[in-house]
C-alpha cells in the first residue's frame, strides 16, 4: 500500500531519496551563497562550524526544513528503508520514557534503536504474518517550528529543534500524537545524516491505547 498516491511522479521520485536529494542541494547552495548574513549571527556561527563555506541563514533553514519534511514523508509513505538510511551508521532513534531523561543509555525508553534494531522493526512490519499489521493503517505527519541551533558545542554537528503532530488511522480509530523533535545532524559526503533523533511526545506519559508500531 502506498500513501503517496496524490503526488506527482516527479515529486515522488524526489522524495524517494530524501537524504541524497537534500545533501546535493545543501552543497550547491552553500557554495553559491558565500556572503553570509550578519542579522542571523547565531545561525551563522553554527554554519561556520558545520558548513564547508559560509552561507545564507535562510538557505540553511530551507535546506534543513526540506530534510525534515522529506524524513516525515518517508514515514507517511511507508518507505522504511529510506527512513533508516537517513541515520548515520552509529545513529540512534530515541523516544525517552520521561522528559527529564538526558540520554537513552541505561534508562527505560519507549524507543532506543540503532540501525540494526530499526532493521528488525522494518522487517517485522513487512512480514506477511505480522498480524497486527494486517489492517490498513496510515499516518500523517506535520513538522513545524523549525529552529536551527548548535548549542551542544560539537563542531561537526547541527542541532535542530522542531515540533510535530502525527495523526494515525488504524482500523476504525484515529490517534493523535504531538511533541518535539531534536535532530543532531552531521554532514557526510552523501548529505545530512542523523546522529541522534530525540522524540518527546507530549502524551507519552499517559497510558497507550494499543502500542506504537513504527517510529513517530
Amino acid at each position, binding site marked *: 500500500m502506498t500513501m503517496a498516491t496524490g503526488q506527482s511522479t516527479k515529486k515522488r521520485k524526489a522524495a524517494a531519496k530524501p537524504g541524497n536529494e537534500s545533501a546535493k542541494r545543501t552543497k550547491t547552495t552553500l557554495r553559491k551563497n558565500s556572503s553570509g548574513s550578519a542579522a542571523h549571527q547565531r545561525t551563522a556561527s553554527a554554519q561556520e562550524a558545520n558548513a564547508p563555506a559560509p552561507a545564507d541563514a535562510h538557505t540553511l533553514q530551507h535546506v534543513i526544513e526540506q530534510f525534515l519534511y522529506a524524513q516525515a514523508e518517508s514515514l507517511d509513505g511507508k518507505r522504511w528503508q529510506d527512513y533508516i538510511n537517513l541515520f548515520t551508521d552509529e545513529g540512534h532513534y530515541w523516544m525517552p*520514557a520521561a522528559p527529564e531523561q538526558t540520554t537513552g543509555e*541505561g534508562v527505560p525508553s519507549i524507543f532506543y534503536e540503532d540501525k*540494526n534494531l530499526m532493521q*528488525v522493526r522494518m522487517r*517485522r512490519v513487512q512480514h506477511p*504474518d*505480522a498480524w497486527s499489521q494486517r489492517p490498513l493503517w496510515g499516518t500523517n505527519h506535520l513538522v513545524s517550528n523549525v529552529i536551527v541551533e548548535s548549542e551542544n558545542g560539537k563542531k561537526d554537528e547541527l542541532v535542530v529543534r522542531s515540533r510535530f503532530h502525527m495523526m494515525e488511522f488504524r482500523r476504525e480509530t484515529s490517534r493523535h500524537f504531538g511533541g518535539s523533535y531534536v535532530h543532531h545532524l552531521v554532514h557526510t559526503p552523501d548529505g545530512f545524516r542523523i546522529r541522534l533523533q530525540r522524540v518527546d511526545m507530549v502524551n507519552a506519559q499517559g497510558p*497507550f491505547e494499543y*502500542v506504537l508500531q513504527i517510529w513517530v
Partner: protein
Amino acid sequence: MLQQRPDVRRAVEADRVHKSVYTDPAIFDLEMERIFERVWIYCGHESQVRKPGDYYTLQIGRQPMIMVRGAEGEVNVLYNRCPHRGTMLVGDRQGSTGEFFRCSYHAWTFHTDGKLKNIPMMESGYEGTRWTRENPDCNVKRAARVENYRGFVFASLAADGPTLQEYLGPAKIAFDDMCDRAPAGEVEIVPNCFRVIQNSNWKIFLENQLDALHPSVTHQSTGRAAHEVELDIAKKTGHAPLSYHMLSAFATVTIDQWDNFQTLNYPHGHCILTGYMGLRPQDRDTLDYERVLAKAYGKQRKEEILSTNIHHVLLYPGLSVQSPLQQLRAVRPLGVDKTLTEIWHFRLKGAPEPIYRRALAYYNLVNSPSTMINADDLENFWKCQQGLTADGGEWVSFHRHYGHDIARDGMVETAPGMGTSEAPMRNQMKAWAEFMDKA
C-alpha cells in the same frame, strides 16, 4: 431495582467455559466484588515510596487507593477518599504529601496512616453533632489488610482470609527468585511504569501469559525478523547481543519444542511456567556476575539460585512476573472489555551494570509501548473479545492435553512432552469458579 445475579456455577466446566464470563458486565461486577476486592492484590514495591509521605495511587477492583509511606516507615494502603464529601485526597498518580494529606475541597487533614488530624471549625462547627474525633468514620478508611513480602506490597480489602504467604503458596517463588538473583538479596524499582490498555477482558491476558503454544504463531514475524538481523550481526562482528536472541527465540523455538516446557498449577489459580531463557551464556558479563553472586552466597547456593528453572510466574488474579528478567506486569481491570497493564522493571541490588542493562533491553523491546511482541498479542486479545460477543458458539475450549495432567500434592503439573497443555487456563477457571461461588 434488584439485579438478577448471574449464575456463574453453570458457566465453568472442567474443560470449557461459557463465553459470558468474558463479556457479561454483570459477571464483571461480581468478579470485582468477589475476587479483586477480596483477595491479595499487588499494590507496588516499597522502593516506589522511599520517604514518609511518598505515595503512589492504584486501583484495587473498582476502588481508587493510595499506597503511602507512613511516618513510622510503614507502608499504608488507604482508600483515596476524604470522609467528608468523598473527594479523592490526591489527584496525581504519584507524589509526596509531606507529613499529612490535606483535602483540596475543605482543608480537612489526615495523617499518612489515615487518622484524622484536623477539621476546620472542629469546635464551633461540629459541636453537638455525632461527627466527633472519636468517631472512626472521621478517618480515611484503610485497606483491611496490608502485607509485604520481600519488598512487594499487597493489600486485601477483606478482613478475613488466608495470609499473603498462605494465599501465594509456592508461587511466591516469583519474588524469591527475583530477589535471590541480587547479590544483596533484594531489588529496587526502576522508576518508570509503562502503561498499556488492552481492549479485552482481563482473563484473556492471564490465559495468554502461560499459553506456551502461542509464541511461535503470534510472534513469528518479530522472531524471524530478529533472527535474520541476529545472523547478519553475527556474520559481521562474531556475535549478536543477547537482546536479539530474546526476540528471535519466539520464532526459532518451534511449536513441538514448546511442548518440552512445563506448567505447574497451584490452588487459587497461580501457575509457574518453567523453561529458562538462555540467560547464562559464558560471556564475561555473566561470569563477572556469577563471581559476585558466589562471593555473596557461596558457590553452592549461587548454583542453586542460577539454576532456578522459571520462565514466568502468574499470581492470580492480577500479576505476571518474569523473575529471571526482573520485570512484572500488574493487571488492573477497567471494564468487562478493557484492561490496563502496568509494567515495571527492577534492579538487582549489588549486581554489575551489564546484568541490569540486558534485562533493560528486554523491558524496552518487549514491554514498552513500542513493543514488537505484545503488539500482536493485543491484536489477538481484541479479536477474541470481539468474537466472543458473537452467537457463533457458546463455549471457549480448553481441551488441549486435557486428561493428561498429573495431579499430586495439591497441585497439577503437565505431563512430560505436554507443556502446551491448557492446564493453566483450566486451573485459573477452577479457582475463578471457587471465588465467584462464595457469596
